[in-house]
């Protein structure tokens, strides 16, 4: 056994050595841990680690196969996201022990803090002492054993799995119920307790999901086909959209779910124009060769940056909302154009990883599909806080799309109406967030950029926190961003439009002198290269496209993404429907669209008199409406030179 002494080594150095020793099959003891955070994070070898003392946050987090023994206490989130292996804690555990575990065994000999086993998918979490409130909160599977008393609201909003309590069950959370325990389960519990030398109690109460909240009584009714143009039309009273909304609610009796983004007039990039004549744009067929567009994102703090052939990337969209073939086509198209793709929520598929040149792996509050192995094969990691279409809410995936295969990747029960948690279990403030970012960096050897996805809401404060917490870049998403499924009321009424979002973000960074400490990727209803150039002029480092890429790849904008029977095979998990989608063809369409974006960016940049996209700035823009002038502070010059005088010559 090799000793690593944390009185001599930093946790980062110790973890690097630990991983190397793990590869060599060596067991390790950690001396003088003194409650430091991230001990053992990212270890994926079947070795034993003995921690002599107390450990801090995320001890044994993001690991697989290893066996940890901590002689004393642990802080928040012990065994975070662990795949297999075990952790035995001699003393007490802080909040969220066993958060998001996917198969490990965790034993705590003392008491454990609140929200134990939050969003766990599989495995066993056993507490010999008492549990604090909300053990089993939003758990998707696996087993929690509490030999002492349970706290308040046991099993709050659990979707599946079992909780066994030997002591007192104080009260049950929403959608949890007591049920009978069978002999097979008892035998299995005794086998587990024997294995860890824990004396079995006389009996257990068993708590499971009561099934009252996971599925709607009536399923979401398909809409009539209203083209998006009329759906988002400018007439306010009793237009087809309003009528359809009322008709659907008269059947379901609840709020509506639909796909796509905000369908109402909002200030947008069409409300600003270029100051200079763009008469020369397009004249030069080789303009792409004359403008430097290579863009690096995520390297400002020393991580290995994403290398984009133009300041463009793909917006995060999930495998789940979209079919596997669609994600594959987007990945192929993005690779052909030399830009980065993003997994969105719900995990990484092999097809997507193989096809994408560079891939950002997104981590959401439900930790659906999140794991150490896919983190390691990603090119960047991203913490999702919220999205522009529905800031403050989690993702929604209707039962029709939660197929057994998809459920397996996400680690959830098949066939539930999945409402992803809107909050992370372990990020309750900017202070916790710092420790979470560090965990990701520890797990991946500080090589990958870590970004944050922010829906435009409390932008000024959020962007400052992102800067202070040291994210490598920020993806900022405005209200015009789309979603695979969201409440129609929220999509149309909640959020900050993309244009004011970027203005406020830049102002906030300038206020704290951090303009050069954060790279901003802007998204939310950006349609083409013209919008991208305007975003760059306003201060974005890159623009991201979601909906336009989907449309390039065959979407007909019927807004039925939530239903699961997408006629184009894009927003579906039904193999019969997906058959219609041809990734090899659609990837070419996506690639061609992205190349048109490249050409637009080059042509406009060139016409504005520059040879590098980094030279674009606010001075290149004017506001075309008083409202846009007010929002952006740009001069109101509603007759831009490029449209009025182009090719008309001068008056005699």
């Amino acid at each position, binding site marked *: 056994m090799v000793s690593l002494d944390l009185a001599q080594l930093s946790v980062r150095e110790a973890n690097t050595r630990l991983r190397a020793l793990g590869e060599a099959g060596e067991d390790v003891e950690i001396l003088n841990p003194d409650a430091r955070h991230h001990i053992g994070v990212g270890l994926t070898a079947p070795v034993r680690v003995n921690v002599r003392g107390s450990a801090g946050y995320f001890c044994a987090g993001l690991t697989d196969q290893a066996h940890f023994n901590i002689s004393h206490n642990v802080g928040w989130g012990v065994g975070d996201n662990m795949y297999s292996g075990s952790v035995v804690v001699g003393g007490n555990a802080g909040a969220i022990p066993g958060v998001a575990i996917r198969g490990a065994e965790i034993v705590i000999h003392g008491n454990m803090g609140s929200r134990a086993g939050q969003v766990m998918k599989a495995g066993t979490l056993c507490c010999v002492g008492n549990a604090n409130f909300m053990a089993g909160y939003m758990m998707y599977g696996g087993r929690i054993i509490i030999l002492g008393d349970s706290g308040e609201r046991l099993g709050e909003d659990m979707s599946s799995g079992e909780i066994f309590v030997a002591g007192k069950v104080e009260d049950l959370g929403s959608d949890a119920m007591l049920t009978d325990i069978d002999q097979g389960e008892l035998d299995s519990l005794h086998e587990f307790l024997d294995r860890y030398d824990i004396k079995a109690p006389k009996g257990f109460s068993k708590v499971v999901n009561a099934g009252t909240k996971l599925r709607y009584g009536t399923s979401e009714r398909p809409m009539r086909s209203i083209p998006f143009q009329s759906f988002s039309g400018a007439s306010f009273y009793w237009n087809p959209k309003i009528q359809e909304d009322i008709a659907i609610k008269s059947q379901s009796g609840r709020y509506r779910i639909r796909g796509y983004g905000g369908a109402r007039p909002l200030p947008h990039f069409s409300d600003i124009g270029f100051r200079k004549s763009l008469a020369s744009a397009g004249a030069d067929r080789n303009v792409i060769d004359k403008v430097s567009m290579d863009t690096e994102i995520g390297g400002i703090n020393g991580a290995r940056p994403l290398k984009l052939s133009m300041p463009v990337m793909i917006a995060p969209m999930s495998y789940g909302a979209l079919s596997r073939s669609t994600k594959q086509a987007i990945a192929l198209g993005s690779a052909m154009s030399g830009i980065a793709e993003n997994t969105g929520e719900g995990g990484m598929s092999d097809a997507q990883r193989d096809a994408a040149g560079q891939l950002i792996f997104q981590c959401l509050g439900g930790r659906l599909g999140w794991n150490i192995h896919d983190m390691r094969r990603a090119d960047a990691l991203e913490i999702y806080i919220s999205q522009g279409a529905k800031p403050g809410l989690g993702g929604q995936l209707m039962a029709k799309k939660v197929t057994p295969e998809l459920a397996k990747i996400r680690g959830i029960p098949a066939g539930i109406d999945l409402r992803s948690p809107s909050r992370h279990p372990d990020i309750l403030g900017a202070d916790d967030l*710092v420790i979470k970012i560090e965990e990701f960096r520890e797990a991946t050897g500080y090589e990958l950029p870590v970004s944050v996805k922010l829906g435009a809401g409390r932008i000024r404060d959020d962007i400052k926190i992102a800067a202070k917490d040291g994210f490598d870049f920020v993806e900022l998403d405005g209200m015009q961003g789309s979603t695979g499924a969201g409440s129609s009321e929220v999509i149309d009424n909640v959020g900050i439009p993309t244009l004011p979002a970027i203005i406020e973000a830049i102002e906030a960074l300038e206020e704290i002198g951090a303009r050069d400490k954060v790279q901003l990727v802007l998204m939310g209803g950006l349609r083409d290269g013209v919008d991208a150039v305007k975003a760059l002029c306003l201060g974005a480092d890159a623009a991201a496209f979601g909906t336009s890429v989907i449309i390039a790849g065959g979407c007909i904008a019927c807004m039925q993404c939530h239903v699961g029977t997408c006629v184009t095979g894009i927003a579906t998990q039904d193999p019969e429907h997906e058959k219609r989608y041809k990734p090899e063809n659609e990837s070419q369409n996506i690639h061609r669209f992205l190349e048109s974006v490249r050409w637009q960016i080059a042509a406009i940049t060139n016409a504005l008199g520059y040879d590098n996209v980094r030279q674009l700035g606010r001075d290149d823009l004017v506001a075309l409406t008083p409202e846009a002038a007010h929002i952006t502070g740009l001069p109101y010059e509603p007759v831009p030179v490029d449209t009025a005088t182009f090719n008309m010559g001068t008056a005699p």
Partner: protein
Amino acid sequence: MCGIAGVMYRGVGQSFDTGKALIQMLDGCQHRGPDSTGFALYAPEKSGRLKMRFFLEKLIEGDSQDSINTIRGRLGELGAVVEEEAQVGDNYRVTVRFGGDIQKLSYEMERAAKVISIGTSLEIVKDVGSAHDVDDRYDVHEFRGTHGLGHVRLATESDVKPEAAHPFWATGFADVAIVHNGQITNYWKMRRRLQQQGFEFTTDNDSELIAVYLADKLAQGAALKEALASSIDDLDGTFSFLVSTQDEIGYAKDRLAAKPMIMYQDENLVAIASEEVSLNRLFPGQALNTREPAPGTYATWSRSI
């Protein structure tokens, strides 16, 4: 968005290295708040004396001596006799002989200068930067006393400036200080209620409100324990805070337990912090028998026990 720490040594009539202890504890959790750091340090002064600290405005044109003269002049007018004075970092520190109404003196001085703290044993030191940065400027490590609080801050909704740093003194109430991690959501409602009773606030920070709220209860004759019990009912939001008076230290934690807190006690001291890593800084190489206070609970410790 912060880290908090508190320590109280047992042993009547003795003094301890509270400054060094708090620097260590705060350095241990500096990751929770890199913007500013502060200390509330307690050491009893001779009877009839008050210790006062003021911010000297760096940005004001002219000499800081002008501000010192203003403060000194105003103190004289209010019947406070200066016995000792010094300029420490960006602070003016003064000990006065004073027998009048401390609350009235405080409010009058607030109008003349930026008061950091007033007390018979309390002194607050706070500024932008890390625990070691602030120590370099104010020699916190030299401070010996009985107990104290500390705080590291990441500014989220207000500016990074010394006045917005913690600890907060309960404006107008000698020796009451607080450090807080969290957010009080019924701040304005509570503040209006206290303002109607005549209390004055010098910042828009919710932590100052907790300090004044508790000090008011104490002034009405409540024990610190009782004041903390009612704070859990009266304050909305997420919070873990520590409070200290001339001879007591206490904590309160909201029912959601969204903000961490962990404590350790033995025959020599009681220490409380956001994270165990801070407690362990006082006992390197030892595994501590710590305890996490339950949600919705409070407790106090007094120097006499």
